[in-house]
Every structure is written in structure tokens, then in C-alpha cells.
């Protein structure tokens, strides 16, 4: 199945784009999507402890399952305000 990946801030720069489309195994979790990105972009690994994630513009957990067509977002620590 295929998911849209959204990346922000420094992660967006490391990944070269704010929107990627990636094929992932059926029944993949957010965590599996992230692991595949870490393989692709080694600089991502450091972010795991401080990372937030969302599925379809709602905050999610790394154990959340993703479905075909989902938008999966990975967010470094926020700094609004």
C-alpha cells in the first residue's frame, strides 16, 4: 500500500521535501513507516526520542496502524509562539 509522508522543519530539510509518497507493507504501523525513512535518511535516527507523529491530521502513536492513502506526519519538537 501507499502512504503520503509529511515532514516539517529540519526533518523536511533532511528529507529533501515536505511531502513524500512511499510504499509500505500492508498493516504497517507509523513506526514501520518511520523505520523505512531512517534507512533512507540516516540523519533521521537522532529524532526518534523527541518525535511526534500524526495520521490524517490527528496526533497518533507510533503503534497506530496506517492504511492505504493515509497521510503520515513526522514532527520534530515544536517551537511556535
Amino acid at each position, binding site marked *: 500500500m501507499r502512504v503520503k509522508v509529511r515532514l516539517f*522543519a529540519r526533518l523536511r530539510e533532511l528529507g529533501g521535501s515536505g511531502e513524500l509518497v512511499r510504499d509500505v507493507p500492508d498493516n504497517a504501523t507509523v513506526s514501520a513507516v518511520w523505520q523505512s525513512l531512517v534507512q533512507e535518511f540516516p540523519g533521521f535516527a537522532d529524532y526518534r526520542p523527541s518525535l511526534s507523529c*500524526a495520521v490524517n491530521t490527528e496526533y497518533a502513536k507510533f503503534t497506530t496502524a496506517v492504511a492505504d492513502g493515509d497521510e503520515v*506526519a513526522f*514532527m520534530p519538537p*515544536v*517551537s*511556535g*509562539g
Partner: protein
Amino acid sequence: MNARTAVTDSVLDAAMLAGLVEGPGHGAVVTFLGLVRDHNQGRRVTHLVYEAYEPLAVKALDRIVREAADQWPSVRMAIHHRTGQLAIGEASVVIAAASAHRADAFASCRYAIERIKQIVPIWKHEFFEGGDTWVEGATADPDDVRALEQALRIACA
């Protein structure tokens, strides 16, 4: 742009936000403006660029407005956050909190800015003389009860 919560690349307007929340039963309106400072951690800042995950950021602002209403039932609140490039002195965020009495307006406004820094998916890219850096603050987790309690402690202190 007269929604109570918004993420926008337009210039922010505190008076308009105050107008959105004021009502005849309100005796107090507190507004907070976050401004771009010309220095940070010893560096001379030239400008900032704010990036947002906009749909989730608006939902997070809505959540903060709900949390404030739960905590201070008489409070009506509006929050707008700016995105894009901002010059020194421009406002990055405006909060307006109206309530019957001033204690609640102050507390809820203070609470909101603490929560914004905790859970709203917006990122600050700081450009200074000699370089630039992404500011990384809090790991966003709206369900982190300790973070919420910390914001309440600061607000009502």
C-alpha cells in the same frame, strides 16, 4: 479571517481578536502578543520564518481554547498564529482572552501561550548574523498530563 483560531501568513491584529471575544458580561480582556526579538541567545537575529502543519495546528489551537473554557468557564478566547517570514518587531502569535473578572482573563491567556509552545505543530526557523537554525522546543504530545499541569501551574501561580 474572523475565526477564533487561525494559522495565517497575514499580519496579526490584536484589536480584531479582542473584538471577537468581548461580550457585554465581560469586565476584562487580556491580550498577549509574541514579537520577533532582535536577539536570541547572544545572536543578532535578522528575521524568522515560521512553518506550520496547518490543519493539525488549527486543531491544536482549538483544543487549547477548549481546555481554557473547561478550566475557566467564563473565558472566551481567540488565538491566531502567523506563518512565513517575519521581520523584527512583528507579531508571531496573538491571544485574546475575555472574562467576567480579570483573574481568569490573565490566567487563561498565560495558560494558552504555554500550551501553544507545548502542543501546536509550528516551527521557528531563526536567521541570525552568520547563520540560521531550526529552534526545537517541546515534543508535542497533547495527552501529556504533566505538560498540561505545568501550564496550569504557571498560569495560576
